[in-house]
């Protein structure tokens, strides 16, 4: 699962560096993308393309590995066999997705070691939504359904992008997430249509999560030279607003149909424009949390650090002195 948030782009004022690229190679590269062909790791690519993709795929990978923690909160407490096994499988999938995405980013030349170091040292970001806590089992269900739903909107768009290894990883991820979406929806509906206690649990969880969900896709994109180039290169596939609208269109009716409410009095679909209207999310708060001051930032990183440190002896023991790193191929 993944949110594009606002952090997956280079600063808009960063130089593109395109003037330093070989014009013939650049033209061939752009022509390949324009023909709808994928770029593979051994192809020539502009430095900006490589840099932006590493940044984006790496953050996506971090979001998966950190994203396994909020639902992991309830892994030992999931009620009943079916939920218990499914919750385990879902958390496992998030770790699996991280593995796939780190591998895709590695093909561009950044090692997994370096990416994990940057994550646990706080140098590299992950989706902000995972800096919020899962207070109850119902919170975990809301994450399973709606955060994954948001992620799928993003990932389906990105799977049509231009970089081969990322597309392959996303195809697998999307196939696996079909289960997440159904499982999450099923769990939420069970609570929403269940006992009064269950109903209260799920409504409260939804109230807590709605604000973070509305920031999931990030603020409206600022059109810049960068954005234009990245769209032409099929790195950025859809605008944040477009993804948010698509998400609201698909899921708000499903929330309402089981009698749940959303804590935004202004939320409605404008039938004339076909667009959803809502109270503008608190982007200042979003910035504060993404920069480290959220309810769970410190814990998330501390846990990831501890997992890395506690497993270090295993990795030390098995590392052969003859080992030699080679980037994965595809």
């Amino acid at each position: 699962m993944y949110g594009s948030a606002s952090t997956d782009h280079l600063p808009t004022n960063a130089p593109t560096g395109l003037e330093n690229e070989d014009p013939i190679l650049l033209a061939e590269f752009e022509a390949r993308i324009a023909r709808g062909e994928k770029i593979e790791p051994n192809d020539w690519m502009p430095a900006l393309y490589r840099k932006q993709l590493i940044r984006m795929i790496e953050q996506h990978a971090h979001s998966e590995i950190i994203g396994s923690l909020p639902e992991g909160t309830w892994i030992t407490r999931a009620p009943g066999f079916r939920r218990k096994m499914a919750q385990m499988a879902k958390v496992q999938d998030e770790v699996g997705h991280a593995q796939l995405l780190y591998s895709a980013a590695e093909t561009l030349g950044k090692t997994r070691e370096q990416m994990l170091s940057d994550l646990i040292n706080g140098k590299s970001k992950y989706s902000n939504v995972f800096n919020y806590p899962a207070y109850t089992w119902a919170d975990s269900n809301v994450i399973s359904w709606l955060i994954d739903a948001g992620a799928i909107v993003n990932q389906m768009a990105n799977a049509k992008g231009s970089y081969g290894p990322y597309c392959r990883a996303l195809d697998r991820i999307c196939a696996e997430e079909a289960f997440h979406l159904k499982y999450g929806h099923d769990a939420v509906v069970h609570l929403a249509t269940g006992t009064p206690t269950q109903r209260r649990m799920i409504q409260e969880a939804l109230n807590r999560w709605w604000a973070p969900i509305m920031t999931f896709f990030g603020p409206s994109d600022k059109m810049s030279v960068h954005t234009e180039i990245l769209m032409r290169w099929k790195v950025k596939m859809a605008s944040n607003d477009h993804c948010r609208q698509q998400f609201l269109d698909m899921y708000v009716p499903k929330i309402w149909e089981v009698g749940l409410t959303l804590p935004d009095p202004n939320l409605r679909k404008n039938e004339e424009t076909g667009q959803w209207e809502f109270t503008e999310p608190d982007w200042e708060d979003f910035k504060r949390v993404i920069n480290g001051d959220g309810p769970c930032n410190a814990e998330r990183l501390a846990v990831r650090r501890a997992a890395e440190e506690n497993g270090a002896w295993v990795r030390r023991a098995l590392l052969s002195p003859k080992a030699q790193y080679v980037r994965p191929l595809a």
Partner: protein
Amino acid sequence: MSAANSDALKDLLYRLADDQLILGHRNSEWNGLGPILEEDIAFSSMAQDKLGHSLQLYLLLQGLGEAEPDTVAFTRNAPQFHCAQLVELPIGEYDFSLIRHFLFDTAELLRFELLSQSSYEPLAQVARKLKGELKYHVLHANTWIKQLGSSTEEAIDRLQGSLNFAMPYALGLFEKTGYEEALIAEGIFVGEDELKAGWIEKITVILAQTSLELPDLTTLTPVYGGRAGQHTEHLQPLLDEMAEVFRVDPTAEW
């Protein structure tokens, strides 16, 4: 089936199912916290398999008139559990979890191989079906123990310490109950002694390929009691945690 045999069979099934449920639960605690991403994934799969195995066995119990699996798993208290104490111990560090996995799954694969010949056909069927999964679990355990057990001094010390600590508990897996003779006589199960003998052989072969030493089994006192509902102080908190949400409303559908 006679009433006496039915009691013996249920006793056996509860032991098998409770072992798998509790160890599957314990091992799921590693999910997201493992030593390398790929191993995190593999260990979680095996924990899920254990849950799945316990479910199959609880379903057999339901067929024999016991309550449905969720009720059995999520509403009993520690004294009503028949798992060996080995499986309820906290996950500790990864060396302990790996050693426990190695000792337990080696026994479990053998147990299921033996049960695939059981005179109680529904159990024999389940045992045959799940054998492939257990085969992978043992392949996983053996590979890790062989590699880590012949690696650095640090790793060998850790594993040896965990092996020494776990071994008396592992012997508790073969604790006999009052139904032992009936189970053997009816051909339901060949008995704990035969299983234990096969298990010692298997773990000895693997450990011989490492720098680890099998503790002298003749000097160890097996930790018994689990099969009779006597447990460590760790089981009840585990059960309370596992059932925290379920017990909010045990009649609700979750």
